[in-house]
């Protein structure tokens, strides 16, 4: 019966943690309007979370698109429908791969950076010092980082998908000989604005989730070297699970 007790306890713990995270989010949301007044801080964080992730996002987008082109071509060739490669790659990227893979890469690169920055500030008393100077560290340090991530994510996902489509086209049309006109016209016929819409909504939600988890873990990290390390690891793991879970929810919701 001990394991049952432990399970129950861990369930309670998870609920408590979830509640704490949601309260943290609410506290941040309340401070957003006043934080927007310091737009320069937010711009710096968009650079931090977005622009610095560009290289990995673009590279990954290209390779994922190329793989899609390759695999898709092999599969569609069996049915004599190679021209459908465009629409297959586009839908796959825009609706699923773009938002999800970008979110996972974001959690790995930008999420860990956010968490470790905040964790380090916690460990070196910078956050306490700010409190002592009567500056709300959440308003000054946390909210700009959160907003930076939320704004950067959908943009990164769009770039990923766009480059992915180019990659698929590179393999399919240039290499495998799919007719360029059919590639694009079938894509245009098969992809609608609502598909793109779905992708954008998904990436926005993933942005909120990943940024929230990252800043939360960093802000409440144990103020030691290993505490910061743990915070960054937990950021990646929790973000990944959250993104994949949200993916299912949102895909079902859009159906």
């Amino acid at each position, binding site marked *: 019966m001990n394991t049952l007790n432990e399970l129950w306890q861990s369930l309670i713990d998870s609920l408590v943690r979830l509640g704490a995270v949601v309260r943290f989010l609410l506290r941040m949301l309340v401070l957003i309007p006043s934080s927007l007044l310091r737009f320069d801080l937010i711009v710096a964080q968009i650079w931090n979370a977005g622009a610095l992730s560009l290289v990995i996002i673009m590279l990954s987008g290209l390779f994922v698109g190329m793989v899609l082109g390759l695999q898709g071509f092999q599969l569609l060739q069996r049915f004599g429908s190679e021209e459908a490669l465009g629409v297959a790659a586009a839908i796959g990227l825009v609706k699923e791969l773009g938002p999800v893979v970008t979110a996972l890469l974001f959690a790995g690169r930008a999420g860990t950076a956010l968490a470790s920055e905040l964790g380090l500030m916690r460990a*070196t*008393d910078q956050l*306490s*010092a*700010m*409190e002592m100077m009567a*500056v709300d560290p959440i308003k000054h340090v946390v909210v700009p980082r959160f907003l930076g991530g939320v704004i950067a994510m959908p943009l990164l996902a769009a770039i990923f998908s766009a480059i992915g489509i180019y990659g698929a086209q590179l393999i399919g049309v240039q290499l495998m000989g799919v007719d360029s006109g059919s590639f694009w016209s079938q894509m245009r016929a098969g992809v609608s604005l609502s598909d793109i819409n779905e992708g954008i909504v998904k990436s926005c939600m993933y942005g909120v989730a990943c940024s929230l988890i990252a800043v939360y873990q960093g802000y409440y990290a144990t103020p030691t070297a290993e505490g910061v390390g743990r915070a960054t690891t937990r950021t990646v793991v929790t973000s990944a699970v959250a993104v994949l879970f949200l993916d299912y929810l949102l895909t079902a919701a859009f159906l």
Partner: protein
Amino acid sequence: MNQALPIVDIRNLSYAIGGRPVFDGLDMAIPRGKVTAVMGPSGTGKTTLLRLITGQVHADGGAIEVAGQDMRTLKRKGLYELRRRMGMLFQNGALLTDLTVFENVAFPLREHTDLPERLIRQLVLTKLQAVGLRGAAGLMPSELSGGMSRRVALARAIVMDPELLIYDEPFVGLDPISMGVILRLIRRLNDTLGLTSIVVSHDVEEISTVSDTVFLLSGGKVVAKGTPQELRCYPSEIVRQFVGGLADGPVPFHYPAPDYFAELLAPGEAN
């Protein structure tokens, strides 16, 4: 002697961390305008006391009054107002790593005042001059030594002209010269700016040279109070051990363990 109201008045304070009582019925009155040292063995809760005074944590029982404000009833806004009248120097300086020395000292001014840039510049440079680091204004915190970053933090702490300055273990890890510099600054700033200073430390010799009053904490209570000279001849075991730096006494040398011979001669089992 004019009995001015103490700037920090603690009465019957009790506070526990994770069930373990840190303070149980603590009474302390810190006089205005003087340098007061708070000393004690490691783990007696000196830093916790500072957190209680600055409102970072709340007491479980008893009363704390800081500059006339009852800390129990103070809401966030009132707390922030109060903190603007205080300055705190953290153990490792706690400078914001992405700002220059100048920007670090200017930070409170930029956040809380609408002063024109010219005035901010003058204020910052004046405070930096007071701590002897006006020439380092353009450096980044990562380029400073331990002593220098603490001095910058000090300049930042006084830039808003506070009434109360709190130093949390300011001498940890400093060489004798840097230590001497900080000591000199503590005394000079206190007198020239008319501040009250509270210094938490356990460098007995050093802090005795600059403080007016010393509190010695042990076991969550004040075990001694007086001028540095009075403390040196205080009739108490624990004070004697602390002041003299004795290895054994009321604070035991040995961590609690079973009987020595019994453990040595026991049939070998790794614990």
